[in-house]
């Protein structure tokens, strides 16, 4: 048991392919990104999400996105300097995918919290009222997000989005690693749920609906509420 706790220590902040300082600069002067820390142990979200999934998800998947994004940025920098427009365009796919992966997962880690630290507690305050107004009830929101998440074909994300211009909440989905802004420039992500298979397969196999039902137990509404209030302040 103790061994298990040791094995699931939270990650050290290291960036593969970049420097260990936040907002690191590579040799060329390109600003690279780093893998953010989790504020909880890998195993802290059990039984909703297993420690093994959290470890792989953070240490392998997210770390790979960071590494490949940094690599793509360096290649982009070189292409721009050489005025190679077709190389710049060619890199957009990798940038969108890996950059999106980094952006999305950075939000995702903050969206989760162990039950012992407040995970799963329903939203209060302004966000709570807004949810009631825009969806009818908190349960209705959960049901909608679960339905859209389960129906999403292939890989992607389901989001609780705030349209900062219209000042309304909505549920959106994006494919692959597309960040929420690809659905609308004024959309701010409050909460994102990763429905790529890697997010749940080891524990739930193909039963994505079970994963979606359970993840609500560890959702960090406090963070979502803070983002909401900051944006509308």
């Amino acid at each position, binding site marked *: 048991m103790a061994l298990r706790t040791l094995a699931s220590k939270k990650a050290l902040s290291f960036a593969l392919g970049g420097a260990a300082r936040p907002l690191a600069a590579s040799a060329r002067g390109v600003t690279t990104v780093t893998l953010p820390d989790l504020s909880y142990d890998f195993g802290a979200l059990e039984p909703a999400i297993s420690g093994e999934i959290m470890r792989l998800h953070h240490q392998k998947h997210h770390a790979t996105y960071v590494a490949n994004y940094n690599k793509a940025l360096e290649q982009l920098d070189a292409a721009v300097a050489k005025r190679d427009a077709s190389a710049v365009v060619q890199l957009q796919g990798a940038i969108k995918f890996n950059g999106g992966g980094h952006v999305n997962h950075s939000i995702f880690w903050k969206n989760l919290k162990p039950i012992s630290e407040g995970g799963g507690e329903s939203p209060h305050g302004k966000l709570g009222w807004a949810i009631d107004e825009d969806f009818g009830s908190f349960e209705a929101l959960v049901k909608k997000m679960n339905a859209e998440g389960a129906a999403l074909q292939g890989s992607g994300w389901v989001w609780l989005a705030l349209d900062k211009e219209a000042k309304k909440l909505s549920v959106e989905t994006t494919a692959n690693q597309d960040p929420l802004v690809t659905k609308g420039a004024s959309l701010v992500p409050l909460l994102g749920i990763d429905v790529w298979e890697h997010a749940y*397969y080891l524990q739930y*196999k193909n039963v994505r609906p079970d994963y979606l039902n359970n993840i609500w137990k560890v959702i960090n509404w406090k963070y979502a509420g803070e983002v909401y209030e900051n944006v509308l302040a």
Partner: protein
Amino acid sequence: MASTALVAVGGGISLGLVASSSVASCSLRAGGDSRRLGRRLVLLRRGGAEGQSTRGRNCPKFNCANEVDVVTEDDSVDGDATDDEAGLEAAADDAIDADVDTEDELDSSLPEDVEWIKQQPLPYPLDALEPFISKETVEQHWGVHQQIHVDRLNGMIGGSEWEGMSLGQMMLASFNEGREEPHPLLPCRTGTIGHGVWNHDFYWRSMKPGGGGKPPERLLKFIDRDFGSYEGMIRQFMDAALTQFGSGWVWLSYKGSGLPYVKSRSPIPSDNYGRLVISKTPNAINPLVWGHSPLLAIDVWEHAYYLDYEDRRADYVSAILEKLV
């Protein structure tokens, strides 16, 4: 109902295509024809002067709706020494032929006894692909994932006009040429699920225990011609597998001729038809919809490799190419 369908199809199909042309090559006419088609999609074989005789070649048909015919790499290339190019095309076509040969057969081609898509049995035992693909993965992938696809598909097509169509026809029709909206007669997920069933059947048959390595000489010859070398093909294949961001498939297919009357060759070599190509498709799309004839498919959805390789997609694809193809 049958007669109206016939009229709709008859009005749509350009009859000129059925007539023999001097170019003795056959191809799947999915792209161009579907625009003109009515409710039923008919895949016409564009016959050459020897149109009939190509069908007589010694290749098994891959018919998802009922029989299981194992298509191995030996079968996909015909051994005709004098007409290898057409042979490769015809053989690949045969491998995924639809039930219908001509519009006249439309009515009689729909068998009364089979209206439902069935889960095809695996061509080898569940643990036969160990240690490269574990028994657990095969059980989960074939037994659960694919079975769910089949059940859902049957649930959706039951009682609708799509009953009785072969899987290939359904797939091509529901693709709706890649338009966002689903085909008007199909609920929107049927397309993906239909593709999913076909793709997975093909995937299991793309592998065998003790396989892998270089293909037989007859196919290798085309690989060398179209990719430079076997290693070059592997490199392109791996590249496609690793840049298929998200869920999808990687394919080695034959890109047959898509231009019925034009004999000119594009100055861009890669545009020229009549060659092997590697393609990657998202989610469950199948290159049949582009008029390609698949020879080999590898599933790169995470569920295909996560239990055995976790995030290491490259290791999974190399293992298949080296040990299981």
